[in-house]
Structures are given as C-alpha cells and as structure tokens.
C-alpha cells in the first residue's frame, strides 16, 4: 500500500504558506480531522442509506409483514407458487452451464493469449472484449438473429441440430444454454482482460526459471501461471454467480420475440416482477427479492471476509 517513492513527481502545492500554521493537525500524522472525513463520504453515505440499505430493509419488512403480524407467510406463498421452483431450477441450470464454461474458456483463452506476440495478443483481447459494449438488450437482440436459422451466420450449426425456425432453437430445454451463450458473449472478454493483467503481474523470472527447469508451455501454464491467478478465477466465479442469479433482460426480450412462448416468469427476477406488477402481490414479490438478496449477500460476505480478495488497508 505504499505510494510512489518520492513526492517530487507531484506538482507543487499552489498555496503559499500562511501565518498560523495548524500545528496541531500537522502533528496528527497522517490524518486529518474527523469532520473532514464525514464531509467527504457524506453524499455517498446518504445515497447508500437511501438507495442501498433502505430498500433492502423495506423489502425485508414487506416480505415479513403479514395480516397477523410478522411471519414467513409470504415466503411460503411464493414457495408454493407454481412458477417458483421452475424459476430457480432454470437459474441453477443456467448458472451451472455458464459458470463452468466461462471459467474453463476464460482461463484457457487468457493462458493462450498471454504468451503471444504483443500485437497479436492485443488484437485477440480486443475482439474478445468488444461485445461487452452490447450487454443486455442489444446482445439479446443480436443473438435472437444468431439463433434464427434463416439468415444466421451460424445457420450451418443450427441446421446440424435440425433447427429450422427460431422456436426450434429456443425450445424450453435449450434456454439455459442460450442465455449462457449470451452471457458468455458479453462478459467473457472483460474477464479475459483481467486474467491477462493478472498473468502480466507474474514475475518474469518465475516463468524463466520454469523454462530453465525444462517445463513446457503446458506445464508453465497449468503449474505456474494458473495457481497464481487462482484468486481472480474465484473472484470471477463469485461475481458472475451473483450477477447470473438476477437474470432478467434476456428472457424478457426472448419472451417478447417468441410471442410468449417463454414464460414471463422464467427467471426468479421475472417472477418477482410479475408478482408485483401483474398480480399486485407486492409482499410476495418482496419475498422473492429477499430470496435473491440473501443469495447475493451470502456470496458477497463470503467473498469479502473469507476470500480476502479485496484490499482493506
């Protein structure tokens, strides 16, 4: 956590010395006054309370408030709702496909791109990264076309599976796979860039030592490099898992495009939305939101306190 070795690189302070130097503060190295601290974080704390903590507390309160007082009735309600179990099953299936393939391919591609000549590697990384610009609705639409056998650049693959029209491709059983492909398309590049950066931080001597010891490229990649970027792989897994549990826009767009062939309650988040705005069951919707929130929270807390991935002083 040290800064640049000397302060000479920093532009000189523009203020001339004034009378009555604040000796007390100067002695309290390295700090400043507490009030100043509160002032700097003030706006953020207000936003955090109003838009982070308050809605979470409100959701919990709504989910727990029943006509007879506090209870878990809304959780039981939603649990028994016929779309509840399928929605969570869908997400589990989607996450399983996506997380496994993303982990394997991102690590593999980062390791493959890393030893390449700089320019070539830059080009590959940029191509992998570019789809990140179309996260969400745009990617869903583009893939809608990709999955439509007539006119798709991937028609040869779709035809190999004997898919003739869009509704063949987006058959219910295929959806987790389809959303996994969309998520991989927009998200993998960013992670490859991060892994690449992590690989760049590995001291060159270490790689050279392995070379001298006769390790081949595979051995260097898997025995030296991979263990050293492990924490970034875990970071990616956890963040992706949390984000994936919130799937909404992709099934939503595909639902519109297939004229309702896909349930508007396909994912838990869609279910929460439907409960709130279609069925006017806000307390039940809050219960589903809390379910999702708890999943996200558990993962976040585990990562922050157990994973020691983040620098906190």
């Amino acid at each position, binding site marked *: *956590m040290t*800064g640049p070795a000397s302060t000479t690189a920093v*532009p000189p*302070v523009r*203020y001339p*010395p004034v009378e009555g130097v*604040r000796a007390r503060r100067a002695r309290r*190295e*390295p*700090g*400043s*006054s*507490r009030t100043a*601290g509160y002032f*700097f*974080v003030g706006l*953020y704390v207000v*936003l*955090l309370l*109003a*838009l982070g903590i308050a809605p979470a507390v409100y*959701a919990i309160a*709504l989910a727990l408030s029943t006509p007879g007082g506090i209870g878990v009735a809304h959780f039981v309600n939603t649990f028994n709702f016929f779309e509840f179990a399928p929605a969570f099953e869908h997400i589990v299936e989607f996450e399983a496909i996506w997380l496994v393939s993303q982990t394997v391919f991102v690590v593999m*591609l980062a390791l493959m*791109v890393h030893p390449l000549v700089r320019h070539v590697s830059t080009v590959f990384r*940029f191509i*992998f990264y570019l*789809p990140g*610009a*179309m*996260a969400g*609705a*745009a990617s869903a639409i*583009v893939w809608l*076309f990709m999955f439509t056998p007539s006119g798709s*650049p*991937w028609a040869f693959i779709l035809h190999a599976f004997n898919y003739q029209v869009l509704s063949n491709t987006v058959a219910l059983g295929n959806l987790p796979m389809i959303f996994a492909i969309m998520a991989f*398309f927009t998200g993998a*590049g960013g992670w490859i860039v*991060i892994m690449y*950066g*992590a690989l760049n931080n590995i001291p060159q001597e270490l790689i050279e030592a392995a070379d001298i010891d006769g390790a081949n490229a595979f051995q260097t990649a898997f025995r030296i490099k991979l263990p050293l970027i492990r924490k970034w792989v875990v970071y990616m897994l*956890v963040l992706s898992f*949390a*984000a994936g*549990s919130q799937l*909404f826009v992709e099934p939503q*767009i595909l639902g519109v*495009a297939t004229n309702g062939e896909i349930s508007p309650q396909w994912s838990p*988040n869609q279910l929460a939305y439907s409960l709130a705005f279609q069925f006017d069951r*806000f307390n039940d919707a*809050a219960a589903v*939101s809390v379910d999702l929130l708890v999943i*996200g929270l558990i*993962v*976040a807390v585990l990562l*922050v*306190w157990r994973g020691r991935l983040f*620098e*906190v002083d």
Partner: protein
Amino acid sequence: MLARRYTYRLIGLLVLLVFAAFFFVPILWLVLAPTKTDYQLVHESPFAFGSFNTFGHTFSKVINYQGQLMLTWLKNSAIYSVGGTALALAAAIPAGYGLALTQFIGRRALLGITLVVMIMPATALVLPLFLEASAVHLIGTVWSVILPFGFFPFGVYLAYIYFSSTIPKDLLAAARIDGCGEWAVFRHVALPLARPIVALVAFFAFVADWNNYYLPFVMTYTNSQYPVTIGLQILIGSAPIFSPTASGYAASEIYRPDLAMATLIAILPILIIFLFAQRTLVKGMLAGATKG
C-alpha cells in the same frame, strides 16, 4: 519434438480463431445487416454487403419511426446516463478519498459495507426501490432512474484503491501545514492527481447506466420516458416477424434490418467509447489486479 510443438501451436491458433469468430461474427453481422433488405437478409450470405443506399434508407426509417421515437429514447438514455454518472462521480470520488486518506469513526465499517453492496447485484433492490420511489412520488420522473444510478459503490471502491495507493499522505500533510483547508487539499492537491480514476469511474458508470434495462423498465412507463434499451424491446414487439399480432401498419412495420439498425444505433455511443477508451479501460480493469 519440433514438429509436435508446431502442431500444438497450430491447434492453439485455430482454437483462438474459433473463439474470435464467436465474438466477432455477431458484431460484423450487425453492421452488415442494415445494408440489406429483409429479403436479402434471409436469402443472401450473412456476410454479404447490401448497399449504402439501403443502409441510409433503413437509418432514416428507424429514426423517423413513430414521430422520431428513437431520438426520444436516445435522449432519455443520455439524460439518465449522464445524470447518473455525474451523481456517481460527485459521490464516489470524494468518498473514495475520504475512505483512503482521512480518519473517522466507522470508516472500516463503511468500507466493508461498500464491498458487500458492490458485489451484491443491484437488481434485487429494484422492486423495493420502486416502492420507495413511489412513496415519495418520483415514479415517472428522471430522478427515479438517476438517483439509483448515482449510487455506485464500485466507483467508491475504485477511487478508494486509487487514492490509497497513489497519493502519498505526506503530500497532503504538507499541504495542510501550508495552510490548506481539508476541502482545498482535496480540490487542489488530490483531485488534479485523480484524473485517471475520475475517467475510469465515469466510464464504468456510464456504460452500466446506458445498458441498464431493469431499473428504467420498472421506474418508467411511457414512450416519452423510456431509454433506448426498452425502446429496443418495443421495436421487437412491433416487428411482425417476431410478433405476428403486431402487424397492421404496413408502412411503419419494423423488419429485421430495421431492428438491426436500431440495435446498432443503441450501442453506438458505448462502442465508440470502447474503441477510444480501451487503454484507460484496460488499465482500470486491472486497478484491483495490479494491487494483488
């Protein structure tokens, strides 16, 4: 031995090319699709180029769709994203500075909470946020979208990392000895040194806001309020090819090239930022990694 090594390299290169195709083909297709008519799109090679004429025609059709709705959506996206990003910067940069370089009670707790909410996907909070916004009569106003966009803990974390690793505390102490007040130290010493992190947080916030779908989906309810992400969904809904019930207005019907054009227009601002900001961005994405 040598032959085997070359075979491995060749296989490696092939694998890389296959993945490059996976990532690049959809983008290439998207750029080419609006140059073709709907018939050409289906019957010609996906990589065939139509004509600039068709491209221009499709462009003006999409822009003029239903009284230039597309422009309204783009304007809304711009207002939400610029507003949200400005608020995020105003909150996150000083907060990162405060967390990194000042001392106050609750600092570590605030840092911990920031990390947790940063990882927790914001989507789960959208419904309760809706109820909250509805309680204070903000639904349908720009604030119902801009305020939640302004809450950007990831930006706070990035700023915190930057300030704590690049700005020497001695420098700030020197400025204080010279008589600078706390605000002046931040404004005239720390902030000028923090330009890279301001750019980076702005980038991440803007991209996230522009691409956001769920929050405005819940918070807004008329065409005049929708951002372009929701506009795209409306266009799909009015494309007879996907929604047979949507047909009726032959002249204003949305065809596949129109949809592709709309998508291209919708991602253009982000695509341009990606192309020009790649270097800053890569550096920024590694902000955490380089500290590891």
